[in-house]
């Protein structure tokens, strides 16, 4: 049944197309500024040249893609136990992977690959964070065969002899996704999340367009008086109303599109104890979550999402010291309550329960209000009263800001809690999106406690738990209790073996 991989072979011939689009993408990114300048700057004759050169460029890219396809070969060296991939037209690269070092073999499909009907196969080793080798276009059958051959070798080296049939059947079972997030869930996620981020994007967009309009008017393209008159008096109120509604609709649409493009066809597969995630509409991403490497898991849900029964999981894993990678959390959007329980059980062995609760002191709210309301107000009025009185016309805006900020700060204070039980520390925070960060005490690397000198007699203070997946902090709780727990966690860390990873 097994295909023979001992001779060097190429990808599926249709793979030339994948190579072609890849090459376009590669060069396109580099050439994009040139193309834009070319279209904007040049007059008609030059533009003609550019349009004429486009087919030529395509032909050249096609030739390059074909050459790349011809020179991309892979084979299995059974004697040395190596998987060898050769690529490159002029600069040849030969990647040799020792079979026993292979950790993961993933088969995935992007939209383009789905249309053409080929699959990509990634090989991952223990050495680096990046995938070592990516074969971009093979048939599904060949991909499955290659995968089972590559993984088979791990089994044999790991536990002597394992019947390959049983492994094959097990492999076939694990191909079934354990959780797959439906299109409907993604729609729900798009509607209910990331309001602030989209607002920021929109604001940036409006500012640049406004800037552009002003610049055009300065160039005399738009008559300035007309431009100002256009936004006049009573019309303005109606215009603002329409604008706000429009803004909301645009935010929703952007959100939905972004969510779907990013997370389309989100599938979670169980694979020998770890979770394999794959998602994405145009470019399929795949990641592996190993439960023993998970440091911080945060579960986020807002009011609407609660009604829709969806929540978002963010998982931070320990990486091999690569700093930028550590900051990146793995997101699982839109799973429902049961799915989230299943994932947490798989990661932690049990569903984390909220234990003893520590509340922050009311001074935390006071400080937040001082920082976000009192200070800006003082700044605003000191500027307005000393020199620019026309700022006072915007006082209603200030009132809106104060009420809005006040509500946000009140709720984020009310939601700020630390829950502690024997196995888990859960920090709850957030005003609208309420998130629960879950860590296990034995994952802690170091503990910092902190107290302002005027808080000593009040017995309140802060704690930061440092893990390999980031810090979890809690401010202004009962310091006596916090220190007791710190002592307990230190005791647990110091008496257990150091398998935080």
């Amino acid at each position: 049944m097994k295909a023979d991989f001992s001779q060097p072979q190429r990808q599926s011939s249709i793979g030339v197309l994948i190579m072609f689009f890849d090459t376009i993408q590669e060069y396109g990114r580099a050439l994009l500024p040139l193309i834009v300048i070319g279209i904007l700057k040049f007059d008609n004759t030059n533009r003609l040249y550019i349009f004429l050169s486009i087919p030529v460029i395509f032909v050249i890219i096609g030739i390059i893609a074909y050459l790349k396809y011809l020179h991309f070969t892979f084979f299995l060296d059974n004697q040395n136990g190596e998987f060898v991939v050769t690529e490159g037209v002029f600069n040849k690269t030969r990647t040799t992977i020792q079979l026993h070092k292979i950790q993961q073999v993933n088969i995935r499909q992007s939209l383009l690959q789905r249309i053409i009907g080929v699959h990509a196969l990634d090989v991952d080793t223990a050495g680096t964070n990046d995938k070592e080798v990516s074969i971009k276009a093979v048939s599904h059958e060949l991909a499955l065969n290659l995968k089972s051959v590559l993984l088979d070798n791990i089994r044999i080296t790991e536990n002597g002899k394992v019947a390959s049939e049983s492994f094959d059947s097990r492999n076939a079972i694990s191909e079934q996704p354990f959780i797959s997030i439906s299109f409907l869930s993604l729609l729900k996620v798009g509607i209910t999340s990331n309001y602030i981020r989209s607002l920021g994007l929109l604001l940036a967009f409006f500012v640049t367009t406004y800037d552009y309009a002003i610049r055009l008017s300065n160039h005399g393209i738009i008559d300035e008086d007309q431009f100002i008159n256009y936004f006049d008096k009573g019309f303005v109120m109606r215009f603002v109303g329409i604008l706000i509604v429009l803004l909301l609709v645009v935010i929703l649409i952007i959100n939905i599109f972004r969510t779907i493009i990013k997370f389309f066809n989100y599938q979670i597969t169980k694979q020998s104890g770890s979770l394999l995630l794959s998602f994405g509409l145009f470019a399929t991403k795949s990641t592996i979550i190993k439960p023993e490497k998970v440091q911080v898991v945060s579960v986020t849900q807002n009011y609407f999402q609660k009604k829709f029964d969806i929540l978002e999981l963010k998982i931070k894993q320990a990486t091999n010291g690569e700093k930028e990678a550590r900051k990146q959390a793995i997101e699982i959007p839109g799973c429902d309550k049961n799915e989230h329980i299943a994932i947490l059980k798989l990661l932690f062995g049990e569903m984390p329960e909220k234990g003893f609760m520590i509340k922050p002191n009311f001074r935390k709210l006071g400080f937040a209000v001082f920082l976000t309301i009192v200070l800006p107000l003082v700044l605003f009025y000191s500027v307005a009263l000393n020199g620019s009185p026309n700022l006072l016309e915007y006082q209603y805006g200030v009132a809106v800001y104060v009420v809005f900020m006040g509500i946000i700060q009140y709720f984020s204070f009310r939601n700020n809690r630390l829950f502690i039980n024997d196995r888990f520390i859960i920090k709850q925070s957030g005003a609208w999106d309420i998130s629960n960060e879950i860590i296990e005490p034995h994952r802690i690397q170091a503990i910092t406690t902190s107290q302002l000198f005027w808080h000593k007699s009040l017995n309140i203070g802060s704690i930061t738990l440092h893990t390999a997946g980031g810090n979890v902090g809690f401010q202004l709780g009962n310091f006596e209790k916090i220190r007791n727990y710190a002592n307990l966690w230190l005791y647990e860390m110091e008496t257990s073996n150091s398998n935080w990873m």
Partner: protein
Amino acid sequence: MDSVISKIAYPKSDFQMENFTNETIDTTQLPRFEEVLFTPLHPNYWKLTLIHLFVLFLILATALGFGLIFNAELIPYKWNLVIAAAVLMLLVLMFSRIAFRKKGFAFRNHDVLFRSGIIATNTIVIPYNRVQHVALHEGFISRILGLAKIEIFTAGGSSSDIEIPGIEKIQAENIKQLLMGKIQKQL
């Protein structure tokens, strides 16, 4: 009330069933990190700080002097400027002194503690079995003063690393040996 801990969360994979005991821990009897006596930094470290500050002040004073010479508009305010600079220097000096006094370190059987902070008192605790590596650092001036700095790194990123400055060279070497020994034992 403090919860009574009925079991310790041992990591799953390291379970050794044969010699596994599970006694109740009395949380009030646990060693308390807040009662540890901290060792202050070596007095020479204050000299080092003074030298650093002196260089800084010298640069500041030179800048002020040049400003007064080349910008005639500043001359009417010269006393204000000089007084402002003097107050600033005094404040910096005072806070440096407080910072120096507040810094301290301690080595327990199973962890290392470092305390610092002017307005807030921060205490960071790193168990030896979480230490990734230890480094000894000597600056040019600190070598003349016979001082060294110990850096202790964990996997928790830069915010969870400890830097203990102002330890006598020989003592620092000893501490490093001690830490290395502790790490080796853990492995």
